[in-house]
C-alpha cells in the first residue's frame, strides 16, 4: 500500500479500502488523474446510508439527461420507457414517487442498460472512462475494474458506493470473464447491472435525524444534491454537487442557498423549467394527439412535433431568458415560430430551418400561453374545437381547480350536431345541451373560460366564423366579464388563483408529495413569489431551499395511490 501518496489522503484511504476488500496488494494508482475531481470520485461512502423516505422513479428525460451528462451525448439511449402513471389532478413527479416497475418495464430498462454499457465499453469510447489497463485483457483484474466502476457508480447512484457495492460489482465483472473471456466484457456486464439497479432507476431519497425537530427526519446530504439537481436542471448531480454533498455544505441553510442560487442563475435552469411545465401542462398527451386529415389538411407530423416545442420555447424565453413575471405569460405577444407552423399561423417564416422569435401585433387575438396553437389543439377533439375541454384544462392545470367528472348516467341525447343549420356555433349547441341542469352545473365552471377561445379551431388555427356564423367570444371569470383570448389572458393574469396554482405545483414537483400533504406551505410560497415579482427563479429557489421541503414528518406520509392508466383519455372525450 505504500504506493498511495499521502498528499491525496482521500484517494489513498479509498483505493486502499478497495484493495482491502478485494484482498489486493497493489493497484496502478499512478495513472489516476491528479485532479480533485478524480480524488473525490474515488471515495467510498464512509457512513451507513440513511433510512429511505422516498423512491422516485427517473422520468424518461431524467434518464436521458443523466446518461448524456455521465457518458457524453454520443451515447445513444434506445428503447421504450415504461410510462409513469399520473395520479388524478397531480403531477407525474408525484406519480414517480409511487411508481413501480413492471416485468415488461424492467425488461426494457435492462436492454437499454446493456446497450448503453456496450457503447461505453466499445473500443474507442472506453478509453475516456478507464484510467487503467488490465494486466490481461482475457482475465479478471479486480483493481482495474474497481478503478472504472467506483467513479462511474458514484455518478450513477448519485453518491459514493459502499464497500459492499464495490465488492459486488467488481465480483460481477470478474465472474463474467469466466463466461465471455474478456475483461472489458465483464466490465460491460457490471456496468449494465448498475444501469438496471434500483439505485439508478430510482432517485432514492434517504434521511437522517433532524436536530431541529426531535423525532423528525430531514433529507441527508446526497439526497439534497439529487433534489437540487433534478429539480433545477432535470439531470443527475454533477461533480460540484456531489462534492458539496460530501462536505455536508448542503446541510446548512446558507450552504444550500448558495448552491441553489448558483444553479438558478445558470442557463441550465431552462431544462428544469421545461420539465416542470411539461409536467404541469400534461405534455405527455401530445404523443396521443390525433387530428383528422380531412377536416384539418394543414395538420401533419411536423406541425404536431412543433406545437409543444413552441409552447416550451415561449415559456422558457419569457420566464428564464427575459426573467419575466409569471402573470405576463398569459398576455405576452412574444413567441417563436418555425417553418412547419407558418401555414397554421398564416405567417410567412423565412428561416428554412429552426425557430425564430415572433411577436404578434398589439391587439392581435393571438397572445399569451392560451393563444398558442399547441394548447388550443391539445384541448380539442380530433375534428373540432372544444370550449369545454379548453375550459376544463384551464381550470385544472392552470388554476388547480379540479372539475368534477360528468355523472355516469348522463344522457347526451339533446346534444349537438356539428352540421346543424339551426345551431351553427359551439356556444349555441352548448346552450341547448345545458338546458339540462345536471349538465349545466359543470359547464358553468368550464365553458365561460373555453368559449372565449372559439375563434381558434381544433388545431389552433384562427377562424373568423363557424359554419358561416359569427362567433361570440364572451367569457367570464371570477365575476369579471371579457371578450376573447386577449380578455381571458388578462383575467388569468390578474387572478390570485393563477399564481397560487403554480406555486403549489412547484412545491409538489420539488418534493414529489401529493397536494394534500403540503398544508399551509403553498400560501407561504405564494407570498414569497409575490414579493419577488412572480419570477420563476425566485419560485424555484424557494422550493429548492425551504426547510419544509427537506423535512420528513415523524409519521411516514400515507402512501399515495396512482391513477388509472386510461383515466385522462377516458374522461376527456366525454365533454362536448
Amino acid at each position, binding site marked *: 500500500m505504500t504506493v498511495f501518496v499521502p498528499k491525496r489522503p482521500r484517494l489513498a484511504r479509498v483505493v486502499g479500502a478497495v484493495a482491502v476488500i478485494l484482498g489486493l496488494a497493489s493497484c496502478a494508482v499512478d495513472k489516476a488523474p491528479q485532479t480533485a475531481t478524480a480524488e473525490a470520485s474515488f471515495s467510498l461512502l464512509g457512513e451507513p446510508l440513511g433510512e429511505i423516505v*422516498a423512491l422516485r422513479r427517473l422520468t424518461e428525460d431524467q434518464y436521458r439527461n443523466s446518461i448524456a451528462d455521465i457518458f457524453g451525448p454520443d451515447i445513444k439511449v434506445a428503447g421504450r420507457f415504461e410510462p409513469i402513471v399520473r395520479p388524478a389532478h397531480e403531477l407525474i413527479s408525484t406519480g414517480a414517487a409511487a411508481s413501480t416497475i*413492471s416485468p415488461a418495464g424492467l425488461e426494457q430498462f435492462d436492454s437499454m442498460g446493456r446497450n448503453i454499457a456496450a457503447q461505453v465499453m466499445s473500443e474507442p469510447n472506453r478509453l475516456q472512462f478507464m484510467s487503467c489497463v488490465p494486466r490481461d485483457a482475457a482475465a479478471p483484474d479486480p483493481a482495474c475494474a474497481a478503478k472504472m466502476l467506483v467513479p462511474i457508480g458514484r455518478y450513477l447512484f448519485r453518491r459514493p458506493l459502499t464497500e459492499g457495492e464495490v465488492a459486488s460489482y467488481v465480483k460481477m465483472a470478474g465472474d463474467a470473464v469466466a463466461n465471455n473471456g474478456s475483461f472489458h466484457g465483464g466490465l460491460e456486464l457490471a456496468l449494465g447491472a448498475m444501469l438496471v439497479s434500483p439505485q439508478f432507476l430510482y432517485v432514492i431519497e434517504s434521511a437522517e435525524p433532524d436536530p431541529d425537530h426531535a423525532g423528525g427526519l430531514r433529507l441527508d446530504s446526497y439526497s439534497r444534491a439529487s433534489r437540487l439537481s433534478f429539480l433545477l436542471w432535470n439531470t443527475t448531480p454533477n461533480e460540484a454537487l456531489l462534492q458539496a454533498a460530501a462536505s455536508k455544505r448542503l446541510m446548512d441553510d446558507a450552504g444550500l442557498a448558495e448552491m441553489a442560487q448558483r444553479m438558478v442563475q445558470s442557463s441550465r435552469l431552462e431544462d428544469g423549467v421545461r420539465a416542470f411545465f411539461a409536467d404541469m401542462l400534461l405534455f405527455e398527451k401530445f404523443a396521443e394527439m390525433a387530428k383528422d386529415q380531412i377536416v384539418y389538411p394543414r395538420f401533419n407530423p411536423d406541425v404536431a412535433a412543433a406545437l409543444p416545442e413552441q409552447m416550451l420555447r415561449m415559456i422558457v424565453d419569457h420566464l428564464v431568458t427575459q426573467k419575466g413575471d409569471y402573470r405576463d405569460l398569459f398576455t405576452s405577444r412574444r413567441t417563436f415560430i418555425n417553418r412547419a407552423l407558418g401555414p397554421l399561423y398564416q405567417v410567412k417564416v423565412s428561416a428554412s430551418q429552426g425557430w425564430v422569435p415572433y411577436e404578434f401585433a398589439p391587439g392581435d387575438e393571438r397572445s399569451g400561453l392560451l393563444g398558442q396553437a399547441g394548447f388550443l389543439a391539445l384541448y380539442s377533439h380530433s375534428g373540432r374545437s372544444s370550449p369545454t375541454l379548453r375550459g376544463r384544462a384551464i381550470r385544472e392545470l392552470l388554476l388547480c381547480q379540479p372539475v368534477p367528472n*360528468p355523472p355516469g348516467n348522463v344522457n347526451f341525447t339533446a346534444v349537438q350536431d356539428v352540421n346543424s343549420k339551426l345551431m351553427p356555433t359551439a356556444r349555441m349547441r352548448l346552450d341547448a345541451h345545458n338546458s339540462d341542469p345536471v349538465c349545466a352545473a359543470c359547464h358553468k365552471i368550464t365553458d365561460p373560460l373555453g368559449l372565449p377561445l372559439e375563434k381558434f379551431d381544433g388545431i389552433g388555427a384562427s377562424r373568423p366564423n363557424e359554419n358561416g356564423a359569427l362567433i361570440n367570444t364572451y367569457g367570464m371569470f371570477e365575476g369579471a366579464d371579457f371578450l376573447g383570448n386577449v380578455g381571458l389572458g388578462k383575467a388569468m393574469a390578474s387572478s390570485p388563483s393563477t399564481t397560487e396554482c403554480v406555486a403549489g405545483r412547484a412545491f409538489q414537483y420539488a418534493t414529489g408529495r401529493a397536494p394534500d400533504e403540503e398544508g399551509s406551505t403553498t400560501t407561504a410560497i405564494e407570498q414569497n413569489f409575490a414579493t419577488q415579482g412572480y419570477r420563476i427563479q425566485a419560485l424555484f429557489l424557494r422550493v429548492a431551499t425551504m426547510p419544509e421541503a427537506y423535512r420528513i414528518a415523524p409519521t411516514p406520509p400515507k402512501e399515495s395511490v396512482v391513477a388509472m392508466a386510461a383515466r385522462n383519455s377516458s374522461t376527456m372525450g366525454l365533454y362536448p
Partner: protein
Amino acid sequence: MSLILDRRTALRGAVQGMAVAIGLPLLDIFLDGNGQAMAATGAPVPVRFGTWFWGLGVNPPRWFPNKIGADYDLKEELSPIAPLKHKINILGDFSLPLDGKPNLPHTSGGVGIRTGMAIASDRGLPAPSFDVLIGDVIGTRTRFRSLEVSATGDPRNSLSGRGNGNLNPAEVSPAALYARIFGTGFRDPNSATFTPDPAVLARRSVLSGVNEQRQALEARLGASDRQRLDQYFTSLRQLEKQLDVELTKPDPMLGCVVPGTVPDRPINAEIENVMENHKIMTDLLVMALACDNTRVFNMNFNNGASSLTRIGSTITHHQLTHEEVLDNRLGYQPEATFFVNKCMEAWVYFIQAMDAVKEGDGTLLDNSLVFAHSETEFAKFHTIDNIPMMTAGAAGGRLRTGLHVAGGGTPVSRVGLTLQQIMGVPVDRWGAESLETNMPIRELLV
C-alpha cells in the same frame, strides 16, 4: 417463383396480413398416444390464458342471444362469430354492484371485472387483475410471463397489473413486438441443436448480483415503499426466469413457425390502421403462444373510452356513443355501431388465428382460454350491469363451450373466480364487498 410452398412460407403470408387460414399439423410423432402430451418430454401440452378487451360495449338487444344454454341464437352484431360459435361462450346478465361508490365512466366496469373490486376514485388498479394471478400459476416457465398489446397505441391502455401503482404497459408497435418476441433471445423450439449462450449465462449471474443487493436496500426501508421495492425485485426475478428459459433446451413445438420481420407502421387510432396493426400483432402473439414463449397475454383492441376514429369524422367512437342521435327507424346509432362491428370483426380474426394453429388433435385455441370483455354494457348511458363478455377455447378440455350463460344478476366477480379456478389458481373466494363471491359458474366447469 417456386410453386412449392412450405409451411413457413404459407404462414409468413398470413403474418403479413393476408386473411388465409392455414392448418399447421403438429406432427403426431411429437405427441403421445392420446395426443395431449408432448412425446419428447411427457410434458402436457401447455394451456394458455389471455384476455381480449374492447371498449364501449355493444347494442345489447342486437348482441345478446335470446336463448340461454347451448345452441344459442346469433343476432346481427354477434353473427361474425358463427364459424367458431361451438368454441365460444356468451356471458351476460351479471351485475357490478358499486356499494355506493360512483360509476366512473369507462373505468369502473373494466377494473371491476378484472379485480373484483368497485373502485372509489380514478386511481389505478386497486388490486391485482386476475390475469396476473393466473400468470403466477401458469406463466412462470416461459420466457415472458405475459405479453400485453394495445392495437390503438398508448402503452397505458392496459387493464393488467398488480395494483399499487403497477400497470403492465402494453406494446403498441408491431415492429417492436416482433423484436421483443422473435429478436435477440428467441430460441426456435424446433431447432435440432441447442447450446446455451454463454452471454446469457453471464447476464444471468449478473442479475443474481443485483438481486443480492435487496437485503441492504430493505434494511433502510420504511413500510410505505417496501411494496414498491418488492415489485421491482419481482420484476427482476422474472427477468432472471426469462434468462433461465433461454438457457434451457425448449420442448419442440411444431405449431411454432418463426414469422418474417414486420415493417415499421404508423401507430394511431384510425380504425383501418388499428385493424391492420391488430392483425399483425395478433399473428405475432399467436406465434409467441405456439412457440411457447408465453402462456399469458392481454390484447387490448381499443381503449375503454374508445378513441377510435374514422377518416373524415370529426369525433371519436366514444363521442359518437354519446352524441349521435338514436336512429328511430333502426333503433340504434349507426355511426357508433360501425365501430362495434369492427370490434367483433377483430375479435373473430383473433380467435380464428389461434384456431388455425394445430396442436395434436385440436388447435391452439382448444388448448387456451381467451376471455373477451368490454367495460360498459351500453356506452350511451355508461351502464355497467350486463357487460358483454365471452370466452373462447376449451382450456385443454377444462371448460365447456358453446353456451350462453345468464348470470341472473349475480356478481360479475363469479366470472373472474371461475376462470381462475379453471386455470388452476387455488382460490375459493374472490372479490370485495358485494363483489365477494364463492360461487363459480358451474355450467362452465367440465
